Structure formats: C-alpha cells, structure tokens
C-alpha cells in the first residue's frame, strides 16, 4: 500500500472548496506516503470536475460514476471502500464536512482503518501523524496510527492551503458497482429562511452567544447594536433556543461573514462558529473564560463579564 487518496466533495453541481484544501494538505505528506497523489470524485456528474481537480502535485484524477443524482451516504460508503480496495492508498483524506460525517467513520470502522476526524495538522513520521482538538479544542492531541495499513483522516475545512492550479494529471474512470445501494431517498433541498436582514453584508457585527444567559436580555443587545451602528448576529445556541431566527446565525451551518469588525460578546468559539467568522478584519472578543477558543482567533480580547461591559458601552455611546 502506498500513496495518498483524496476524496473531493461536490454539491449540486459545484466543487466544494475543501476539496482543493485536501489536495494542498496531501502535497505536504505525499513524499512520506510513497509519492503518489490521486484525487477521486464520486457522483453522477463526476467527470465534469476532473479538469478542476488536476491541480499541481496531483498525479491522477479518478472518477467514480454514482447512480444517485445527489450525495447518498451508503452509495458513497461503498464507493470509498471500492476505491481503497483498488488503489491501495496508505492515507485517505476527506473534508470534515456534513457529507463525510455520514459515511467516512463507517468505512473506517468496517475496514479497520486508522482513523481521526477534524484534523487540523497532518505530518509524516514513519507513518501518518495528525493533530486534532481535545477537551472541546482547549487542548491539542497528537495522534499516530500504529499497525494500520491504511489511515483515513477528515480534515477541518479552512485550515489547509488551497492547491494551486497548473497540474496536468490524467483522468481515469474507476468502475465500482453502486447499483441498488442507496438506503435513503432524497426528497428535496430547502434553503434556510432568508430572514429580515443579511448579516453577510454588514460591515460591523455585534454578535452574542450563550453568555447572554436569557431570552429577556435579547432586546438589550438589539438596542446596544443599534446605538453602536452594528448589526446583531448570534451563535448557534441562541438559534437553537429559539431566541433569534437562523438568518442571524454565524457559523458552519449558518452564515459565513467577513465584516470589518466582529465584536463577540459571550461566545466561547466552538469550531463551527469560528468557521463562519475567522476571516473578519478585526475580531474583538469578550468572555469570562480565559481559555475560550475565540481568543485564539480574536485580535483583541477581554476576560470580563459581558454585562458589565455592556453597561459601560451603553453609557459611553449615550
């Protein structure tokens, strides 16, 4: 077994950005893994992505034709199993995405692969190494995969460098029998509600999270945002609790925002939240927990009670 196999991800006719990050990550460990880098794309429309995936450093693009129009976890599971059997890679990389969560761990479990999810760093030292968060990302665990002929890693999106264009890898169709394997039936795609405001257009977001403690405190922060000339956005727990509509949610499952200023009050910074705001120009975070992950991406931080700061901001802004 040798080489790296990257599994690209597409959705509704588009190649997802994480696919190119996976190629970028794979290049870093390609030599250790035996020198070959193959990128596979699975889908009814797999061939159409072959050209875009032939990035620098890619040796071959593999296309697997799937019988379902959209992603189907069980079909994709078999496709990946088939690819591992035919290509014999020593390392398989997928995005740590919602689609992958539906089939990658099942493949690793069934085939007895080395496995880690949501890796933020990968390397090679007599075999693959990976770093991932521990204890809610407050610590980082370095992992090895001894005794595993093949290791499957899902990589956190938005961390690894996008592979540059300019490769000339040939494409090859890999035939895997995927007929009759679907065990879910696609009904439809639904776009989440548009809502009253587009937070992705705002230049200044005042964002609130679990730290505001109570629904009754929402109006206060709406007023503070207005006084400050900011648009109010929220983290997931506020939407889960039904206190604000999902159109205001920043994060992986909400909106990705890139305002000039992102002022986070009482948001600890779960991975999924950081994915939606880490590229804001200036991030200011107020949280009582000095170990809160949000301080890892913030430019300015304050370990202080957010209500005390809100009091003072209200006064200062008149």
């Amino acid at each position, binding site marked *: 077994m040798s080489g790296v196999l990257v599994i690209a991800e597409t959705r509704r006719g588009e190649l997802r950005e994480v696919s190119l990050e996976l190629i970028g990550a794979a290049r870093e460990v390609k030599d250790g893994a035996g020198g070959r880098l193959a990128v596979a794309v699975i889908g009814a429309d797999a061939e159409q992505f072959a050209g875009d995936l032939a990035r620098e450093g890619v040796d071959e693009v593999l296309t697997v034709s799937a019988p379902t129009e*959209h992603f189907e*976890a*069980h079909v994709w599971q078999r496709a990946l199993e088939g690819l591992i059997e035919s290509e014999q890679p020593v390392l398989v990389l997928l995005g740590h995405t*919602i*689609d992958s*969560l*539906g089939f*990658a*761990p*099942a493949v*690793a*479990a*069934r085939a007895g692969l*080395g*496995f*880690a*999810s*949501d890796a933020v760093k990968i390397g090679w030292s007599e075999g693959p*190494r990976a770093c991932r968060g*521990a*204890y*809610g990302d*407050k*610590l*980082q*665990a370095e*992992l*090895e*995969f001894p005794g595993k002929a093949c290791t499957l890693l899902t990589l956190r999106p938005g961390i690894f460098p996008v592979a540059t264009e300019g490769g000339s890898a040939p494409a090859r169709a890999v035939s895997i029998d995927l007929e009759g394997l679907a*065990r*879910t*039936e696609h*009904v*439809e*795609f*639904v*776009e989440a509600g548009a809502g009253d405001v587009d937070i992705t257009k705002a230049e200044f977001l005042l964002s609130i999270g679990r730290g505001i403690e109570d629904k009754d405190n929402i109006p206060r922060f709406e007023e503070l945002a207005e006084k400050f000339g900011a648009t109010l956005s929220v983290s*997931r*727990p506020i939407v889960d*609790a*039904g206190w604000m509509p999902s159109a205001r949610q920043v994060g*992986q*499952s*909400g909106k990705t925002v890139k305002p*000039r*200023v992102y002022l986070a009050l009482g948001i600890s910074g779960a*991975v999924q939240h950081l994915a939606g705001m880490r590229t804001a*120009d200036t991030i200011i*975070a107020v949280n009582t*927990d000095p*170990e809160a992950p949000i*301080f*890892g991406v913030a*430019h*300015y*931080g*304050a370990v202080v009670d957010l209500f*005390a*700061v809100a009091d*003072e901001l209200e006064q200062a802004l008149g």
Partner: protein
Amino acid sequence: MKIVVAVKQVAALDEEFELLEDGTGVDPDFIERDVNEWDTFSLEAALQLRDSAGGEGNEVVAITVGDEESEEGLLSCLAKGADRAVRVWDGALEGADVLAVARALAAVVEREAPELVLCGVQSSDAVTGSTGTALAGYLDLPRVAVVTQLDWDAASSTATVQRELEGGLIEVLRIRAPALLTIQTGINEPRYATLRAIKQAREKPLEVVGLGELGLDPDAVQAAAGSRLVELATPDRGAGAEMLDGSPSAVAARIVEIVRDRMSG
C-alpha cells in the same frame, strides 16, 4: 417501538488545569463531568417518539460506554424518562478512541435490536462527530447524520428527516427503520427532570455489562481503535489576541476606540 439512545458523560476542563506529567492526559482533579449537550436532544427526540407511539412495549433504553462516574449521565436520562439503562465497561476501554467505543456500543445495540438508534451529532469534549456513523458502520445500519427535524410514520416504519448542510442548506430525505440518526442541537426543547423523578431514577433498571458478557474480546476492542495518543498539548494559538485589561469601563472605552478606528478607515 424500541429506541436506543447512546449517550456520553463528557469531560470539561476547569479554567485552570494541569496536564499529567507523561503528557497523555489531564489531571482528573481539574475535570468536571456532565451529560453531553447533544445527547439531551437525542434523548428528548426518543422520549417524544415513544410517547406518541400507541400500543404496548414502547421503550427508550439509554446506553453508554464509561466508568462508574458516567452512571450520573444514565441516571439523568432515567430521571427524564428513559425506561432503563445499560453501561458497558471494561478496563480495556480506558482512554478508548471513537472506533473502540463504537465497537462496544455496537454489541449492546445488536443485543437490544431496536427500531431506531439515536446519537448526538458529536460530544462537546472529543468532538469527533463520528461515533454514530461508526456504530452504524459496525451494525450495517442505514443512517443519516446531523438531523435537525424528525417525523416518524409508524405505519411504514419510515422517518422523514431534515439533514443540516453547510451554509444554511437543508436536505429532506426518507429512511426506513431499523436505522440510526445523529441528532443536532435545537431539534427540540429538552425537558428537565423533576426532583421526584430524579429520586425515582435510582429505582429504574441500570445494567452494567462487561465486554465478555457481550461476546467481545477486550483485545479485539482495543485493536479496533483507530489511533493512539502520542501527546496532549496546549495548542499554539499563534500571536493570540491583544488582551484589553482594566475595569469594565476601561475595556468598553477601548472597544469603542477600536471600533471607531476600524470603521472610519
């Protein structure tokens, strides 16, 4: 209908914590245990399904892999309304990774043979997002990951679910039982247990089983592990944030100053 809910007693770090000297763990004095937040939603979904199902023999079974301390989590599930609980433990599971845990859970689910298995999407400590799907893999069960809405049709044993994709997109799909679903936060409003129910929870069946009783070889479960921990470390947070010190009023004044500066440029 019978529903198995797999839950986890998670470990949260205190604000100040210390690593063990060998770098492979945290000093347990600095760890607080609690029920995984995601699992409160999957339990609630199971209880609602059970309560709306007519007829006899409807049951919610909470299961976990963990040492004696994790019984608190099962008791909380029983207090909220689970009918019984099963805890799997063996010394071989100490520090087990996601695949080894899923392997142990699979043996319990196989024994219980439920119509539905519900798991949280992820746990707040390990955040692998993978236990449920690995479990479905071992059992060859159909599954949907990251479910934000669940409608059950008893006549056809079919669930119509919404799967939450990135960027606010939702996929609606159907899946027939037996099946496994991983449940996302916000799908429902988890109930609280009454004081009376918390007391009564200790009267409900809570079974402790070893790997051997489930027909599993502890060595094989350890071998199922997908990874081995080399070292735990405090992550490199890069340059990190410039910390604003002083009173709340001083912090607020600096925030106003920074915002005005950045917004005027």
